[in-house]
């Protein structure tokens, strides 16, 4: 069943009038006849509405900084936030030097009441001394939680003094939870800090290999980056730095030498991508390594960018080889998945990326959205000039970079760049809306009430989101697939990842456990007739889908 304006109105009528007016702007019914459809995004969350959004600290320390493995990430604040961001994103990392992988450590100043009253700067400074002595990391970050900014701890000065004292890169991030409207603010703060303090600090002047690239916005959840890098290496690329999954300070400081930056998650890392282009002349290419077609297209676009016949040929060879390996494996799963429907609601890019992979399995996305994205992630980057800055976005300062006097290089001639831009998404992201089918629902900052209502009406066969909302569909008799942390599975990226995903999704459809559970709407017979008795506790299920 589809949702029309009237049904949507009925759902929203449950809200108080003011809330209804606001939420209405965050929900679209895709209609390609209507021209570009505008959606409201990245505005303040409505209090009390059971949002899935997190805070600036979560975006900065939890998402962007946290995966950098050879650094110790100090959380300056009371213990909670450090605890809650400890290994919770399942970003994986392996270090060549096992003594330089600190991901399993949660390090906090554990501020107490007296620190709130008298200030925590001294405690933080002493703690940095301890961290250097105990861990000897390659670099240190300090992330602030709410009270730090309120009591006026100057963590930037503490970091600067510690940097002078210990002679290693120590930087501070004022990512207090109240900044901005969601984790998106934290991504921006982290992007600024990494660009200002780390990227470009390395001494490399020339790329170490012929096709040197960075992968931006890939967090190696469930090993995604490893599968992507495997394929890229086979084609002949050299991956200088991944931001930030399985990333390291050592690689990141030389990220300036890449000839091309790939952008996987546009939302969390587009600031660095743009700044790298301005400062070092490195173009960025929007890629998507989730889904087979998207992976192939991304690989072909990369080859086209470099324009080298041998590289183009090798790319096609690798694609062919990979497809031969996975296509037979995918066949049985496609049969199971064919004709099903899904919701795809994730943070800032996966809500879009996974639709293609679902589609390849025969599963239609009937509702999709982002937790914390901006309008450009829905409508494409062309709307950026039209986005009015508000008080919240102004609170996160833009970092203005200039071309580096010594290191700025045009990677390809301007003329060819213009030519390429017509063919491949260089410095461009088209957003989610264009790929959605007419009649499907696009919803920003989905909350629990709407989740429930949309499920009741659209009756998806699977619900893909995160751990906070996955138990609602479970209780309603619908399987879920966590796309934040993959339910401890993965990798899902690239070619082999697609098979893993197909296997995991199929499992949800055919596990016998569901035979005991019938979603409420399936109890009601669609046809007149007699209803068979359940035998031995096993109910005939899904007859309409067989």
């Amino acid at each position, binding site marked *: 069943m589809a949702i029309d304006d009237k049904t949507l109105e009925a759902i929203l009528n*449950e809200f*108080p009038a003011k*809330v209804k007016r606001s939420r209405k702007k965050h929900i679209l019914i895709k209609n390609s006849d209507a021209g570009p459809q505008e959606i409201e995004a990245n505005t*303040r*969350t*409505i*209090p*009390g509405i*059971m949002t899935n*959004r*997190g*805070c*600036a*600290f*979560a975006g900065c320390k939890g998402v962007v900084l946290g995966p950098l493995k050879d650094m110790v990430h100090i959380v300056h*604040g*009371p*213990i*909670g*936030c450090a*605890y*809650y*961001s*400890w290994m*919770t994103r399942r970003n994986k990392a392996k270090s060549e030097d096992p003594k330089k992988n600190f991901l*399993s*450590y949660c*390090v906090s100043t*554990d*501020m*107490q*009441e007296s620190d*709130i009253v008298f200030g925590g700067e001294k*405690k933080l400074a002493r703690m940095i001394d*301890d961290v250097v002595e*105990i861990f000897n990391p390659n670099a240190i970050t300090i992330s602030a*939680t*709410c*009270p730090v*900014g*309120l009591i006026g701890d100057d963590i930037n000065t503490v970091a600067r003094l510690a940097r002078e004292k210990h002679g290693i890169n120590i930087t501070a991030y004022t990512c207090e*939870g*109240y*900044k901005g409207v969601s984790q998106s603010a934290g991504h921006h703060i982290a992007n600024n800090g990494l660009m200002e303090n780390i990227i470009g600090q390395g001494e490399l002047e020339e790329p170490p290999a012929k096709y040197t690239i960075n992968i931006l916005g890939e967090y190696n959840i469930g090993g995604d980056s490893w599968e992507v890098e495997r394929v890229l290496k086979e084609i002949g690329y050299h991956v200088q730095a991944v931001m930030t999954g399985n990333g390291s300070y050592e690689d990141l400081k030389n990220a300036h030498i890449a000839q091309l930056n790939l952008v996987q998650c546009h939302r969390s890392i587009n600031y660095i991508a743009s700044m790298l282009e301005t400062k070092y002349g490195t173009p960025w290419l929007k890629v998507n390594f989730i889904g087979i077609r998207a992976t192939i297209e991304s690989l072909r676009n990369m080859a086209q960018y470099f324009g080298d016949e041998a590289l183009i040929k090798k790319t096609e060879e690798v694609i062919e080889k990979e497809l031969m390996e996975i296509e037979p494996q995918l066949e049985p799963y496609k049969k199971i998945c064919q004709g099903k429907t899904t919701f795809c609601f994730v943070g800032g890019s996966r809500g879009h990326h996974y639709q293609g992979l679902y589609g390849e399995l025969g599963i239609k996305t009937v509702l999709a959205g982002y937790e914390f994205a901006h309008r450009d992630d829905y409508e494409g980057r062309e709307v950026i000039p039209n986005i009015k800055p508000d*008080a*919240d976005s102004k*609170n996160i300062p833009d970092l203005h970079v200039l071309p580096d006097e010594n290191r700025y290089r045009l990677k390809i001639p301007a003329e060819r760049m213009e030519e390429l831009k017509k063919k491949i998404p260089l410095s461009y992201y088209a957003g989610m809306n264009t790929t959605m089918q007419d009649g499907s629902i696009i919803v920003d900052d989905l909350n*629990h*009430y709407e989740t*429930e209502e949309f499920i009741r009406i659209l009756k998806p066969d699977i619900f893909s989101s995160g*751990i*906070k*909302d996955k*138990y*609602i569909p479970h*209780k*309603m*008799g619908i399987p879920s697939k966590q796309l934040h942390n993959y339910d401890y599975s993965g990798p899902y990226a690239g070619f082999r990842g697609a098979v893993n995903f197909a296997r995991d999704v199929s499992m949800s459809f055919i596990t016998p456990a569901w035979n005991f559970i019938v979603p*409420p709407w399936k*109890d009601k017979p669609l046809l007149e007739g007699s209803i068979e008795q359940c035998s031995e506790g096993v109910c005939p299920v899904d007859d309409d889908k067989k």
Partner: protein
Amino acid sequence: MKNQSYRNVNENPCNMCMPMGGILPFKGIERSMVIIHGSQGCSTYMRRHIAEHFNEPIDVASSSLNEKGTIYGGEKNLKQGLDNLIKLYNPGMIGILTTCLAETIGEDIDRIAAEYKAERGLDRLPLITVPTPGYGGAHSEGYWLAVKRIIASVAEKTRLHSRVNVIVPNISPADIREIKRILQLMKVDYTLCPDFSDTLDRPFVKPYVKIPEGGTRIEDIAAMPGAPVTIQMGVTVDEGMSPGKYLEEEFGVPLVNVPIPMGVRATDAFLDTLRHLTGRERPDILEAERGRLLDCMIDSHKYNFQGRSVIFGDPEIVYAVASTCMENGIYPVVAATGSKGAKFSEAIKKILAGCPDETDILNEADFTGIREKSRQRGANIAIGHSDGKFLTEREGIPLVRIGFPIHDRVGGQRLLSVGYTGTGMFLDRVTNTLLERKHSNYRAAMYEKYYTGTA
């Protein structure tokens, strides 16, 4: 490495923050909801962790304060949040918990709550405020303070009745169900608070409802002052946070503080308390369960006696596990909690008195400290919540999971460890973990020690 007390680093914490603990009791009150006054990240992070432990939807609202709120105060956000929460959930009670942010900017939530009720004409809706800044204590303290505030806000002077107050710490829903079963077997009328045995471990039923069925009824909490006695499983709770103490001081309800009924002695003590109250002996069914537990202990003693345990987590659970280990010769070499509180050390010292080896008792511990001590003291089994997996990964000490949070395994909500039956199940988990460790290496170890002489 420096001495624990001189370190400025909390490295791999053994506790969470105060509002996290404050959410849980509200989930055990009928038709109750919680809003957290602060940045929305607090609510999101906590929901995430609670959902992962219980495998249940955990709806906790947030007032979503932002930069503007830090300057002008968050009153408007909180009131709007309450409006929306009431409209969408129609709750019978709302807990308002504060955060680092709200407390640091000095939000007067009592005033805001009172004003809100007056403005909206909601005289009969209990709004329970609990000041829980993250720096104010660990999650255990948040838990007890929330229970106390719920009771203190709702309790009324009532005529005497026969329902016994039973106040439980943060134990599993399965544990609460077992305690209720024992109370029923002893034919005791009771008000158990907070009762999240159904709400945080709900059966699959149709249709899905936003606020789960179950929980302590508000009118029962209101009548707690008329009870003949309060049985509180809280021997480590500081008096300032003790709900039982509050009922005793304000309403003269006698307080009996007992440990969580885990192990023979503590379960006997709980049942003795009930026997004194009712004059009824243990029924045959419990007598048989006790006998089976003793049989289990005897059968397993040769394995258990080789256990040297490191126990950590919420103070009340560490106490209960330590005393069970003492009864079985799984002598604790380290007993640690991330909380602080004089009563924990004092109480646990008493039960560890007969330990052949001195036990290291750690207050405000982190896992780096616990790991260091465990290695020094040769611990070979860890008992506590999931974060103890660090000890397995780094020191090869196997972990038996109990307490909160259990986020790397399913079924934390279904772990049964109290009463005679639950203790037996817990002991089997411990014994089998010791056996698994033994079987994984003992042939090679013996071969090397006795035959080749290389060990």
